[in-house]
């Protein structure tokens, strides 16, 4: 076995040093009655070439966006990843290292985290950032848990237009902690219904809003934060599933949000059938000590030179055990690195231009659809995704696939009242001619 360096001679020598007769002797502390008789019920090992072949076959049984134009977003947006990102992720100094518990030999990882924190805090207009969370959905749940420690209210208020999976994970997380989840409806423009919010806000510790929301509609965060309430304002948390929109919109911080969470997978990671993605959390400074997960901070070494360490660790499970701010240990370190490299490559100009292309493509697609009689579902402004009304939306994707198109996301599964709702996304990878093709097919179906 090529990953196991011990030769027969090595085994003999080591057994000699240990004073054991056989390898079996080393397992004598395991009672015989629980030992497995016979081999594990899985096949024998394969040679590298055979494994590769199997995976090539698996890969061939999937259809991917690089072969078929893809109009699916719904929380996973298809962006091009520059080759330089994977070149850095493939450096084993990064991917075969552990969580940076020994900072003197992990300054590479730590400095990258510090850079990530700086860029994410900057993009979201917040003061501080953590080093990553699992994904956007669990980051949303962590935001709710955090708010429940900071405020007295036991109610978690969430916009119904927030990503359905984010809401689902949130419910799983808070289920047994004496917290109630209540949803705020959306209006005909697809945005949060502000008067419904004002009514529901009493007793809430947090209000979670998608930006853009699941329908691709851009929320007016400032208007939400300015709603006059009779009670203490809940923490306003903005959840971003498409972080590229941050380059096009006023950041949540200056708009009055206290907390920003979401998924930064759009920054340098593949859609990857749903994972690994990149949960993040940025916040106003006052909330810093209740944040979940790892945080990197600047310090100096014994010679006074700048260096970085994991800090504020008394929040964490290995110190505080059941009183920790979260149970998270391993996070999404390498995904964080991908985002850091990606953002460094794109830069402020590149990311802005990319956002403009996404916006322009989506607006072109929207216009082409409207010209073919396919109407938008909501009136609010959109970034690179929007909902339209398509009759028989459940069956549309099968029809499109026959014509070589991966279609959008039917909304009725998550919003039974939006029976004909159909979510479409366009990114920089969407070609004009494919927009035209889709518009004419859907126009025929509409």
């Amino acid at each position, binding site marked *: 076995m090529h990953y196991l360096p011990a030769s027969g001679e090595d085994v003999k020598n080591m057994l000699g040093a240990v004073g054991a007769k056989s390898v079996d002797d080393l397992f004598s502390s395991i009672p015989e009655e629980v030992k497995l008789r016979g081999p594990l019920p899985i096949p024998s090992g394969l040679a590298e070439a055979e494994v590769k072949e199997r995976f090539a076959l698996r890969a061939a049984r999937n259809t991917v966006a690089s072969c078929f134009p893809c109009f699916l977003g719904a929380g996973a947006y298809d962006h091009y990843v520059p080759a330089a990102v994977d070149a850095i992720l493939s450096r084993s*100094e990064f991917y075969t290292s552990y969580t940076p518990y020994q900072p003197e030999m992990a300054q590479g990882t730590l400095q990258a985290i*510090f850079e990530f924190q*700086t860029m994410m805090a900057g993009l979201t207009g917040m003061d501080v950032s953590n080093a990553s969370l699992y994904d956007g959905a669990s980051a949303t749940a962590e935001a709710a848990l955090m708010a429940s420690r900071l405020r007295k209210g036991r109610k978690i208020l969430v916009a119904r237009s927030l990503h359905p999976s984010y809401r689902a994970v949130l419910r799983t997380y808070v289920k047994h902690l004496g917290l109630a989840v209540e949803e705020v409806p959306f209006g005909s423009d697809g945005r949060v219904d502000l008067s419904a919010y004002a009514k529901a806000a009493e007793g809430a510790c947090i209000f979670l809003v998608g930006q853009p929301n699941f329908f691709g509609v*851009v929320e007016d965060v400032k208007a939400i934060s300015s709603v006059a309430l009779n009670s203490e304002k809940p923490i306003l948390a903005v959840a971003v599933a498409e972080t590229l929109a941050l380059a096009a919109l006023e950041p949540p911080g200056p708009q009055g949000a206290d907390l920003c969470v979401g998924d930064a997978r759009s920054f340098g990671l593949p859609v990857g059938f749903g994972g690994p993605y990149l949960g993040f959390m940025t916040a106003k400074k006052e909330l810093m000590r209740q944040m979940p997960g790892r945080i990197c901070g600047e310090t100096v070494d014994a010679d006074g030179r700048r*260096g970085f360490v994991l800090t504020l660790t008394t929040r964490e499970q290995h110190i505080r055990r059941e009183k920790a701010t979260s149970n998270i240990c391993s996070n999404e370190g390498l995904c964080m690195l991908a985002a850091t490299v990606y953002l460094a490559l794109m830069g402020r100009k590149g990311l802005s231009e990319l956002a403009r292309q996404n916006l322009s493509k989506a607006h072109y697609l929207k216009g082409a659809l409207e010209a073919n009689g396919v109407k938008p579902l909501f009136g609010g402004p959109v970034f690179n995704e929007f909902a339209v009304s398509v009759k028989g939306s459940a069956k549309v994707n099968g029809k499109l696939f026959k014509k070589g198109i991966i279609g959008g996301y039917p909304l009725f599964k998550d919003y039974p009242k939006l029976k004909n709702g159909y979510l479409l996304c366009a990114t920089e990878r969407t070609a004009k001619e494919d927009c035209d093709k889709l518009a004419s097919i859907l126009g025929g179906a509409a």
Partner: protein
Amino acid sequence: MSRQIEEKLLFELDHPGRNGASLPKCDVPEVSFADAFGPLARKEEPVALPELSEVDVIRHFTRLSACNYSVDLGLYPLGSCTMKYNPKINEAVCRYEGLSGVHPLQDEATAQGALELMHALQESLCAISGMDACTLQPAAGAHGEFTGMQLIRAYHEAKGNPRKIVLIPDSAHGTNPASAHFAGYAVEEFKSGADGCVDVEALKARMNEEVAAIMLTVPNTLGIFEKNIKAVCEILHAKGGQVYIDGANLNALMGVTRPGDWGADVMHINLHKTFSTPHGGGGPGAGPVACKAHLEPFLPVPIVVKKEERYSFDYERPMSIGKVQGFYGNFLVLARALAYIETMGAEGLKSASELAVLNANYLRAKLTGKLELGFDGPTLHEVVFCDKGMPNGVTTMDFAKRLIDYGFHPPTVYFPLIVHGAIMIEPTETEPKEEMDRFVEAVEKIVAEARETPDLVKKAPHEAYRKRLDEVAAARNPRLVWKR
């Protein structure tokens, strides 16, 4: 790891006018942010991002990479972390466009390869753990613990009483009590017996209908197999409790013994430990949860099922605890783990566990007499030493930092909490004997230095990119982002 170029921060390298990526020409009319969003449009470019060329960026991160230690450089003996070699074939196959490029919401008919991969991994993990069903959704070990405790809670609730307490031994990882807490349970720590195992009589006396479950790491963090595991399961089951196994240390057991055969009800498996997927400097991991049939109805949605050669997601699970991740789990990590299992096969996995245990026992034999054992029980995959007998006020931390000068990553230190100044060593099966011998020599030298030139040890490291970093100052005055 010796002295090298001082690498500035990205923001200090900022060079207006440079760019590091190219975009295709936009083939549709341009829409401005202001036109689309009015007052909600961003008014200035995101100044937090630098302007750099691809060359600048590649050099920056390549230089940073040189400040890291890694498994590909040498022994990484972190106890309970299982820093084994990360096979290169795993990295190759997970990058196939046909896997990395699949959108999670595509029609199932267009993602049969991805679904078959997940199904094959579910089946393999059930076979290895002796369990009946499996979810691949949890993103890491602690996420798996949380999911497992939710299953237990849902099971008790379905029987009419969620119960209140989860028992956790004092040798457990910090994630165990935190995970149980977030599932809504009160955590009760209980003392390990004199042999490092559960005190069966004390457990019997403590067990009642208020106890929902026990969470056990087997082998535990002392590297000791829970010899009374069958009795523990029986005691819990007799009063309706459940047994959760933390699979962080499964690397000691593959093909030798299976939690499902002990009577355990549910466990998580760290693919980034036992199944060779890389740690990535702190993730992404994957923490699938395997369970017995009676907990299966509660597993998160969706589960991959196979019907007549077709694979699909099963969402029709009315008793499910819900979702714990946005989609289906860290798929590209799952792909790596399956590549490993298919490469190793039944015999290879068993050899891996056998050699992991042999390596740990070899290091134990070689280091005993140089360091004081923290606990004198039979060692499986890891061994714990303590700070007893360290001369001249040299601490475990000093010892660890001095190892850096000898070119090794230190072991896990000050854990488990029940051993004073713990030094917890897990070499894994992928370490060659010579590398371990080199480590033993380094320890020997440091022990001599502690006696003769203690200051050399206390001020270590001397040869790393940075000398000892001031963690207290970092926490006292947190600077978490760069400011101009």
